[in-house]
């Protein structure tokens, strides 16, 4: 029996370390979009807590922690990252496997905010976008999901097919920031 070999979206593109900023690809495990049906928001949150120990995230927030995180992913939708989504959730929400749909990278370092300020049209400074905050916005011309995972680290998701452009855009921004010394 032939075996199919898996390849990650950013294979050959990352990691990058320029100045004091690093970009690495992360394997978030299974990604499942959870979209509660009409009036099922509460039930979905309860089921999520029962099955995975975290609440359905509030608007623009993420719950859980590394390894098992629920990221607010847009109007009436969250992305469960980590464990396979418990089948029982299907009775409350539309579940869709997105494990292969996104390129996932973590941008970290003292100047991570400065680098992202070159690409992202929202205020990502700690005072306005604290750890656990999540947003759907743009990275240059690409639709993206951005979550602050720590004082100096951000989780960024863009479409898998755009991984090369993401790496290119981040690299140019990192070089420009680094060159300012």
């Amino acid at each position, binding site marked *: *029996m*032939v*075996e*199919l*070999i*898996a*390849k*990650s*979206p950013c294979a050959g593109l990352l990691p990058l370390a*320029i100045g004091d900023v690093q970009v690495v690809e992360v394997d978030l495990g299974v990604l499942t*979009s959870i*979209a509660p*049906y*009409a009036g099922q928001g509460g039930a979905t949150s309860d089921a999520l807590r029962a099955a995975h120990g975290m609440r359905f995230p509030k608007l623009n927030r993420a719950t859980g922690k590394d390894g098992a995180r629920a990221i607010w992913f847009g109007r*009436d*939708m969250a992305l469960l990252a980590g464990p396979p989504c418990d089948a029982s959730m299907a009775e409350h*929400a*539309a*579940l*869709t*496997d*997105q*494990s*292969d*749909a*996104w390129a996932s990278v973590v941008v970290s370092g003292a100047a991570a905010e400065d680098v992202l*300020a*070159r690409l*992202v*049209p*929202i*205020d990502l*400074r700690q*005072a*306005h976008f604290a750890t656990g905050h999540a947003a759907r916005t743009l990275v*240059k*011309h*690409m639709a993206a999901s951005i979550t602050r995972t720590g004082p100096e680290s951000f989780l960024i998701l863009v*479409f*898998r*097919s*755009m*991984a*090369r*452009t993401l790496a*290119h*855009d981040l690299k*140019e*921004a990192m*070089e*420009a920031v*680094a*060159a*300012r010394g």
Partner: protein
Amino acid sequence: MRIDGKGLVDRSKPIRFQFEGIGHTGFEGDTLASALLAKGVRLMGRSFKYHRPRGVLSAGSEEPNALVTIGRGAVQEPNVRATMLEIHDGLDARAQNAWPSLKLDAMAVNDLAWPFLGAGFYYKTFMWPRGFWERLYEPVIRRAAGLGALSGAHAADRHEKAYAFCDLLVIGSGPAGLMAALTAGRAGADVLLVEEDSRFGGRLNAETFQVEGLAGSDWAAQAIAELCGMPNVRLMHRTAVVGAYDHGTYAAVERVNAHRARPPEGGVRETFWRIVAKHAILAAGAIERPVAFENNDRPGIMTAGAVRAYLNRWGASPGRRVAVFGNCDDAHRTARDLEAAGVEVAALIDSREDIAHPGVDCRVYSGAVVTGSTGRLGLKRISVQAADGRKEIEVDCLAMSGGWNPTVHVTCHMNGRPTWREDIASFVPTPGSIPGLVAVGACAGEFSTQACLTAGAVAAKEVLKDLGLKPPRGALVPEAEDTPYRIAPLWAVPGKGRAWLDFQNDVTVKDVRQAAVENFRSVEHMKRYTTQGMATDQGKNSNVGALAVLADVTGRGIPETGITTFRPPFSPVSVATFGAGAQGMGFAPQRLTTSHAESVVRGAPMIEAGLWYRPSYFPQDSETHWRQSCDREVGYVRNAVGVCDVSTLGKIDLQGPGAAELLDFVYTNGFSTLKVGRVRYGLMLREDGFVMDDGTTARLGPEHFVMTTTTAAAGQVMRHLEFVHQVLCPHLDVRFTSVTEQWAQFAVAGPKSRALLNAVLEQPIDNDSWPFMACGEIMLCDVRGRLFRISFSGEHAYEVAVPARFGESLFKLLVARAEALGGGAYGMEALNVLRLEKGHITHAEIHGRTTAFDIGFARMVSGKKDCIGKTMAAREGLVDPGRERLVGLKSVGEDATLSAGAHLFDTSVAMTPETSLGYTTSAAFSPTLGHHIALGFLQHGPDRLGEVIRCVDHMRGLEAEVEICDPVFFDPEGGRARG
């Protein structure tokens, strides 16, 4: 002339640079203008029309005369203001618009012909003989016009864009700006202070005032030091705010490395900032205006404030023997500063009769005016009309002041109109012109240092109140100079000769008068007719003066005459900066399929399709022409098996009890009747009745569908579904999300497609378990995937989908197996021929102007239900049999090349717009049929099957007789797909 002990340049750091090929030495902190003036160089440029010799007029970004070109080749930059250009080692600046040299410019003959080159002369001539305009007049005019030149080489330096957010944006770091920043900063506000200059401090660096007993520049340095210590304050120098936009958005340009020869490795030359500010305080200062008198444009004649700036900030006196001419007390400072610095002041000429004694040693002429000047390449002498008669005074520099214009420009960027203030004879910003922005200090018409400091503090406190922050306690505003601003308007000194208003564009008082005579009396007409205000300074130096002259000749007041609109940018912005990040591939994201690398390895030319890249064809060594590859790949599918990556098609996953009903509403045909495990083709209309998109939708479960869209329309369809659901059908309980990126999907097409699949599937399939239009889950090499039996080629075919991580691996596997079966990979060219042979449409046919009726799918519009577009598709004009409708076309007799975009005519008629009956949309050579085929739209088309018409492509020089036929050229019964 450099003055010992004066100025803020660092004399321990000499810098070598070149101007016009001649080497000079300046000091760190010098601009090209200050360094040249220190060396006694006055001639720095030539004017636009008359090529008059020119020197600096100002000491800021408004400079209209001293424009130079720096750098060469890929980094050549024209029209650089010498007044803003910081010198650096190796700087090589050249003058512009002068040939053969700056001193001896052949085009200066224009100045002798000035009587014939007045305002708008070109509208009245160059009309005869017809055709000479493009061939003779225009080329000559174009060559004579323009300032500096681009090198023609692709830009080389990198630029970037960035976003910044703040509670308070302070624009300008003079006394008002600094005081505003200090007040807000001390209260803990989130402050961004931006300064256009390389040095913070504004006029404090150019004047000799004291603040709190300190030299102004020292107080500014101290304030900056304090602000640097505040974590809640960000300071940006070399940064010009160039535009104010809606809802607190400002554009600013930071000269990150533009003051160096080249940026460091990886660095950028400039950054284009998008700043979002809750509040803004505009403390942009004021711009001094010249006085119009005969020959007031000679090198050595500049504004009085500029003379003080060169003297006090750069320690460089623009002249050895200087005269000062003005209409306000402010001009007197220039004489005082010069004398204090030991520079000879020949005279102080004040147009006002009764003036307080200026406190100078030089001869003072009150109630006097300068009436003219001499000196070809630089000022030698001025003529003065004084109470006791006419005087000739030898000077090499004249400092003139017609008063100050507040820098109102940014406040006009949202259509705000400035307000005229008679007492200072100037326009000031109209409050509220930019929501959230207040103008303070000199740019609001408050000219004393004390007033500026106070206004900055007061404005900041207002902002703090709004932000809910406590203003800092204690007496904050330091003591400073507080002399009143006295002025009596003087716009133009009467005289016969030419008195310049717009220096660069050579617009004189005569031109404005003539414009008025010719009834260009509206200020907009005058501007457009004379070009006043259209030079690189956008009228910063000339608008108010020209307006005053126009008001005078038309017998109106200045406010009634009105003012032209200031628009962004405040100061010019390089296209490379405004468009940063787009050069090369950065203009739009690149989308790559999982088979991209393998396709490139196989030598496939990759073509762009809706941001994706797809293989055109897969050439083999023996092949010299794409057609050979294409025909071979078509053969794979017709005779064996071909593999093609179709992952770029949009895929949308729909779930929920309302899913079927939503599909019924967005598709013309029904989907609630579709059985689980089956696929159906669907046609989607726009609300105006024209076809939006088509594709297949599979039912994976009772409440679970997967829709496919075309590659090009994927985004549009997703937005459309959201619109239909949220806006039109909110009652439907359905959720959908794009899964385009989740699945790598490959078409496996051809008679041997099932054989290939069964070699890799864990559960073999056959025609009963997996008939035409069946779909379902499969296990393939231990991977869970999906299999759809659909066919774009018309052959027995499937589309197999696996999670994208396995895409590349599966593509290699499928292609290898296909090759073993006598087939292989096929690309877009073959895919297009295959679908064309089957008469399947693409966006070449559904190009936005065709209906279901036009493409022969009228029967697909269900009569049983409403759907998007159904009503409007029934408009009388859209169901007229005379419309251009889809047909097939094949050449008659010996095969002739058919092409897309050709027009269709009946045989033996003249080809006119009236006789053009339609056009072709797609065409190709069909290796299966052995001749060319095409699809096209033809009036009454389907009613004319079998008739012969002409297909004419003037563009490609092709013409052929073609037979009208059914669009399906191959296997019309469709047996092959089912078999």
